[in-house]
């Protein structure tokens, strides 16, 4: 204990010991960094094999399902609907999360078209809220 405290004082004050300590530190440090990442690089392939064995089939199925979705060709009308839908997904997400605590949402079927229909109304009433007063 005392000798450790004694040594640490030397380490801070005298330069040759500092460099010596520095060499030790550098060695321990670099070894640890390598050791850590080498272990990681050995574990990851094992992880891959394990996941492959357990979940391999599921993944392929999903991939083919995804394929079908993206291959559809659409009419302009469909695209308009879908563009409203993307919007609803990403922009209204917060609102939808909000609604989950109420009973209203769960009653209505999800209808992007009617949602689009309500846009103009929202537009008008909403304009009253577009203010900046956050002082």
């Amino acid at each position: 204990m005392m000798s450790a405290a004694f040594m640490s004082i030397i380490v801070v004050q005298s330069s040759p010991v500092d460099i010596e300590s520095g060499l030790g530190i550098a060695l321990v440090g670099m070894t640890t960094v390598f050791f850590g990442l080498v272990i990681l690089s050995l574990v990851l392939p094992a992880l891959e094999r394990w996941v492959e064995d357990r979940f391999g089939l599921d993944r392929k199925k999903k991939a083919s399902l995804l394929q079908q979705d993206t291959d559809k060709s659409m009419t302009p009308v469909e695209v308009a609907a879908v563009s409203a839908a993307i919007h609803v997904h990403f922009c209204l997400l917060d609102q939808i999360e909000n609604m989950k605590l109420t009973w209203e949402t769960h009653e209505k079927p999800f209808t992007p078209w009617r949602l689009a229909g309500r846009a103009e109304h929202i537009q008008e009433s909403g304009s009253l809220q577009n203010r900046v007063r956050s002082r």
Partner: protein
Amino acid sequence: MSISSKLVMWITGSLQGDSQHLDLLSYLGDTGFGQVEPGNVIMIVIGLIMIYLAIKKDYEPLLLIPIGFGIIAGNIPYNPALMPIGYQDVLGGQQSVFSLFYFGVKSGLFPPLIFLGIGAMTDFSALLSNPKLLLLGAAAQIGIFITLLGSLLLGFNLQEAASIGIIGGADGPTAIFVASQMAPTLLGAIAIAAYSYMGLVPVIQPPIMRLLTTKEERLIKMKPVRQVSQTEKILFPIIAFLITAFIAPGAITLLGMLFFGNLLKESGVTGRLAKSAQGSLNNVVVILLGFAVGTSTQASYFLTFDSLKIFVLGAISFSIATAGGVLFAKFINLFLKGGNKINPLVGAAGVSAVPDAARVVEVEGRRYDKNNHLLMHAMAPNVAGVIGSAIAAGVLLSIVPH
């Protein structure tokens, strides 16, 4: 001696045979491998199980993932003499980063901020539409007080018993708030019990609900809820706050933030504030709160017989609360006529655990009649349960000497 020859000696660790010095072997003693104890491993496994349940079973993932990862991070073994890492380490006055996170828990700051967010995302329409369902949210709080008595019998002191009782409130932030003020050493166990059982509501409640109700009762259809005007929604948080805060001033902090958040949402002129209160602010606090609670479960504090007792008491508490809600619904029915009768399943939602308990009611109701949608009715006692357990917390904070 040349530097290169010294280098060789460093590697073999033989520079100064008998004194403590820096080499690979001594560093190895300071790594997790050198410091590990069985408790660490047990806690890390608990953390992994929580993460598994959150992802696979979808049990309260927003909190179990932060808590689970926090448990792992807080239980990685290390040599505390070298640098501050953990939530309590203090080396020469230096604070660790985890102790700064934990300050938000210890000071009681995080739970009210979460209540602000909950207020800003809760719609009290269901409750406004059928105010008598509020009473079911009151009845379910019986679990809190019976558990308090049970905890006293098991040898906990008053403050600890009060904190353990609040688990029966089925409300994570309330439990953490009370425990942080009255029983900080039990906080980890209480928080984890509260959230675990909130996640397990779909497992715990159904058998109790079935046991205490007849088939006819479960088939009761309730009148559709009425449309609630915006004016009522705006006035509700103000009036409800005034009434509840006068009755239980100890709950001013929690209920104040809950109803403040709701006013921000309903006022119609502070949408951007409500959005941030229930969005980014809530998310950041949830991340830090969960992680901090997790890190505070270091094996030496957590793996005790007390924690086990807390888990047992918590399970009892949840069961009593569920029974309290269901039975009180049946009691009210004695005074109500045909079309106005309450489906007693709805009483189970009085425990809080928003919105899981209400979903359980919906699922149970539809098990017996596919067209009987109880969710909207169950939301009323569900949010009333949040208010009820906050009032209970306020009373306990006022009258239990601490």
